């Protein structure tokens, strides 16, 4: 069932619509949650997180605008955020210099709109890097996957993933340097 049909079903019968969403996207949501939490949570905890994702989705469905993003992406964002919240509570994240992007000092990062615009600008440049570099940066810095996981998913060697991530960050910094 394509997204348009699914959304129509949702509009007519929420229960059946939700059933179809679960059928279509559980594996996808599980992949994102497991990618983030696989090494720090039990499978029960991961499953609970997956369930939370769909609960949040159902609760926020009125906010979903199909003209702005696909249902898959919308669910992906919820999944990522749910997993990230759990991870944040479990771990202390160590930032390393290789992950840093220079932004102008006068950028108002307290402003929600400015933060979204900055993210959008950065993501546009990440997309322009093309596969697999864009996939690596997305998985590493947004989904929070480990090198090992990324390598397995993208069928690359772990060292290749590290090298590509490093180079991609360099290219990204250069591109963003003149834009921000």
């Amino acid at each position: 069932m394509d997204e348009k049909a699914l959304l129509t079903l949702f509009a007519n019968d929420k229960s059946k619509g939700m059933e179809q969403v679960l059928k279509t996207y559980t594996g996808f949501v599980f992949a994102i949650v497991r990618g983030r939490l696989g090494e720090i949570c039990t499978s029960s905890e991961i499953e609970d997180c997956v369930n939370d994702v769909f609960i949040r989705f159902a609760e926020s469905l009125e906010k979903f605008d199909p003209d702005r993003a696909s249902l898959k992406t919308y669910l992906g964002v919820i999944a990522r955020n749910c997993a990230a919240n759990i991870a944040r509570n479990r771990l202390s994240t160590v930032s390393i210099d290789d992950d840093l992007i220079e932004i102008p000092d006068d950028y108002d990062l307290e402003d929600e709109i400015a933060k979204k615009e900055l993210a959008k600008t950065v993501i546009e440049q990440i997309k322009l890097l093309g596969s697999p570099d864009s996939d690596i940066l997305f998985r590493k810095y947004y989904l929070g996957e480990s090198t090992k996981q990324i390598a397995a998913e993208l069928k690359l060697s772990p060292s290749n993933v590290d090298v590509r991530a490093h180079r991609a960050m360099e290219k990204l910094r250069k591109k963003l340097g003149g834009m921000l």
Partner: protein
Amino acid sequence: MKKNLSEILQNADAEALEGLFDSVKAQEKPARKTEEKPKSNRPIFFRVVAFAASVALLLSGAIILTTLLTRETGDSSNSYGRMVDNPKPYDSSFNALTRRADFNEIIWDAEAELPYVADDSPALVEWNGLSLSEALYNKLLSASDNDLFAVTVKVKPDFPYTIKDYPYLPRLVVVNMNEFGFVVDNFVYSGYHQATDQHYEIAVMTKAQLASLRQNYEAPEGWLPFNFESGYFTTLPYPEEDIAYAISTYASVPNTRDAPDASPEEPATILE
């Protein structure tokens, strides 16, 4: 100001992220287990330094040689050939240096980024079965048997990482007999050099081990040639104080391994 990329991206909305989830493939959820212990915390961001027990290389360029102090251990063999001596040095001084945050800046030299060895390379000196530049040969003559050489090799990033993954690698490595192509089972460090944008493997071995390197390696299809062309050798500028520190801290560590005889008085043959 600098911001972590993760922090920046977490503010992205779904519209901006459209398309990026396409590479995420659905996974099968496993059956629920009845009892599980919570897993322990582990840092999720870490810098990986790989210490490969055996590494397969395709050399598309130069080998850079520099000297350190060390001690060595161990023999091993692999299914691709017999390595009588597997020079996996247990070198506390070298390992101490690799733990420094600025190790990459110490050991790598941007000037060493050099092209392929040309077919019309200048005359080389043969030493223990290795073809060396005269400059390197002279360096080796003046080195003691316990001096450690760090042989750094540029690696194509897309090339298979370990020999275990690709059993036919020795055949794949030597695509051109005039290129560098050897499989060495003694690399202990791999790293990425930012300035040259290259991935390197580094083998640490004593002069004695270097001397026995070729004779102890047998590829399934015969010898793989070495060709250390003179223009590609650079002595990397280790800071004086680091070498002095390594010497003062580790020079007293005994060398417990019996090294093969690597006599510096062996006659050199000039290859035409």
